[in-house]
C-alpha cells in the first residue's frame, strides 16, 4: 500500500494556542481515512494543513513537514493554488458560489484559463455524473446553485472539486448539515470515489467513520493518539483513551 500524504512533526499554532502538536500521520492512497475526535481537538486544522487552507486563518503558523507524493507542500516553490488543484476540499456547510450550477462546476477549470466550451461541457457533465448529480440537474444547469436542496448543494460542491481533477479530496464533516437520506447518498458516493482518489474525511459521527473509512485516526487535544485500520480502532484499540472515546465515555 502506497502512502499518499505523510506528515512529520506537524505543529500548528493559532496565535499562542498550540492546536496541533507533533502530528505524524500517513495517509494511504486510494483509501478513505477518517479523522475522529472530540470538538476542538484539531481535526479541521489537521485537514486544512493538508492543502494549506490553514494559512488563510489569521495568526496561523505551521511547522514541520507535509509530504504529498514525497514532496513538501510547504516548500517555498510550491504554489498553493496548484497544490489545491491536486488536493481538493469540501466544507462542512455546502458553499456553492453565487452563480449557476454549470458555472460552479466549471469554475475551477475557468480560473486555470480553460474557456473552450466543448471541453467545459464535457468536464461539467463528467464531474456531475461522478458526484451522482447529473440526472437531477441536467435540465437546469443554468439555474442558480442556491435553488438546489442542501444535500444536492453538497454533492455539487463535491462535483466542483472533482472537476479540477484532484488526487486527494479532503472532506470536513461533509454530512453534518444533511438529513439521513442525503448523508447515505454521500457515503455511497465517497465509497465509489476511492477507486481513483485518496479521501480524508473529518467526522463527528463515529458510525459514519465505521461505515465508510478504511483507516481511522483518533485525535485528542491536538495530538494523534493512534491510527489503524478502522475495524481495529473500533474493536481493539491500542490506547485506553481511544477505547473511552469510542465507547462514548467522553465526547
Amino acid at each position: 500500500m502506497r502512502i499518499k500524504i505523510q506528515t512529520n512533526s506537524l505543529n500548528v499554532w493559532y496565535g499562542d494556542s498550540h492546536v496541533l502538536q507533533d502530528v505524524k500521520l500517513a495517509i494511504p492512497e486510494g483509501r478513505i481515512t477518517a479523522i475522529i475526535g472530540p470538538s476542538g481537538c484539531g481535526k479541521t486544522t489537521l485537514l486544512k494543513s493538508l492543502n494549506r487552507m490553514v494559512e488563510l486563518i489569521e495568526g496561523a503558523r505551521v511547522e514541520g513537514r507535509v509530504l504529498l507524493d514525497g514532496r513538501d507542500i510547504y516548500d517555498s516553490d510550491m504554489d498553493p493554488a496548484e497544490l489545491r488543484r491536486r488536493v481538493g476540499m469540501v466544507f462542512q456547510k455546502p458553499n456553492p458560489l453565487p452563480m449557476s450550477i454549470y458555472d460552479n462546476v466549471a469554475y475551477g477549470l475557468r480560473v486555470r484559463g480553460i474557456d473552450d466550451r466543448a471541453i467545459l461541457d464535457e468536464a461539467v457533465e463528467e464531474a456531475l455524473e461522478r458526484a451522482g448529480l447529473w440526472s437531477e440537474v441536467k435540465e437546469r444547469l443554468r439555474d442558480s446553485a442556491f435553488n438546489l436542496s442542501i444535500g444536492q448543494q453538497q454533492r455539487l460542491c463535491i462535483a466542483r472539486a472533482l472537476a479540477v481533477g484532484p488526487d486527494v479530496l479532503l472532506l470536513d464533516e461533509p454530512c453534518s448539515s444533511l438529513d439521513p437520506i442525503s448523508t447515505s447518498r454521500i457515503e455511497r458516493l465517497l465509497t465509489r470515489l476511492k477507486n481513483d482518489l485518496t479521501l480524508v474525511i473529518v467526522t463527528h459521527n463515529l458510525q459514519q467513520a465505521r461505515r465508510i473509512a478504511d483507516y481511522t485516526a483518533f485525535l485528542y487535544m491536538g495530538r494523534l493518539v493512534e491510527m489503524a485500520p478502522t475495524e481495529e480502532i473500533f474493536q481493539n484499540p491500542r490506547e485506553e483513551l481511544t477505547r473511552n472515546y469510542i465507547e462514548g465515555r467522553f465526547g
Partner: protein
Amino acid sequence: MRGIERLTPYITSALALIPLAAIIALTSLITYHGLGALSWRFISSSILRGGVYEAVVGTLLLFSGATAIAAPLGVLAAVYLVEYAPRSWLTELVERAVENLAGVPSILYGLFGFTLFSKLLGFGISLLSGWLTLACMMLPIIVRSSQEALRMVPRSIREASLALGASKWTTITRCILPAAAPGIATGVILGVCRVAGETAAILLTSCFYTMRGLPRSPLDPVLSLTYYLYILIVAKAGDTPLEVIFAISLLLFLLVVALNSTALILRFRYRGVKRW
C-alpha cells in the same frame, strides 16, 4: 408612569410623521410653483433664450466625470482595505479618516479643490478641477459602502474559490466583486447623490456665471443647475420670475430623487436574490 406608557406609541408615531410631513410640504411647494414653467422646451433651450440647457448638461458632465474618477479608485481602495491590508493601526487610521472625510462640509472641499487643482496644479476654474474636487467628496462614501459590501460576502465563498485553486486576485474579481456588486453600486449612486446637488464645491472650482455655451474641453468652465440656481437667487434676485427658480429647483429635486430611488431599488432587488 402608566400614562406615559400608554401615550408613548402616539407620541412616537406623531414624531415619525414629521419627516414625512416635511417631505410632502417640500415636494408640494416646489411642484406647485415650479411645474407650470417646467417643460421640455425649458430644459432644452439655451440659457440665453430663457432655458437651462447648459446647466443640465453641465450637471450631468460634472457628476458623471467625477463618478468615472471616484468609482474605480474607491472600489480598489476598499478591496485593498478589506482583502489585503493587514489589520494594523495604519489601516485603522485610514478607516477613521475615511469616515471623518464623509462628514466634512462641502465648502472645505471647494477650498481644497481650488487651492490644489485650480491653483497649484494650474487647472484653473474648470470642469477638470470640478471633477477632481467632486471625486474627492464622493470617495469616502464609495470606499465605506464598498467596504461594507465586501465584508458582507461570507468567508465560505472565499474559501470555496481558493480551495478550487483560484488565486486571491481571481477570487476577488470572479467571486467577491460580483457578489458585492449590488452593494457597491448602491454606494456609488449614493456618492453621486451627494455631488449631484452640490453647490459650494463647484462654486469655487469650476463655474463662471459668464460662461456661455458648453465647455469645449475639460479645462473650460461649466454651468450647473445648482450653481445657476444660486446665482439666480442671490445675484439676480428680483430679475428672475419665481416660477423659473422653482422650475429649476423641481428639476434638481427630480434628478436627486431619481438617483436615490435607483439606489433603493438596486438594494431591494438584490437583497432577496443573494443567499449564501
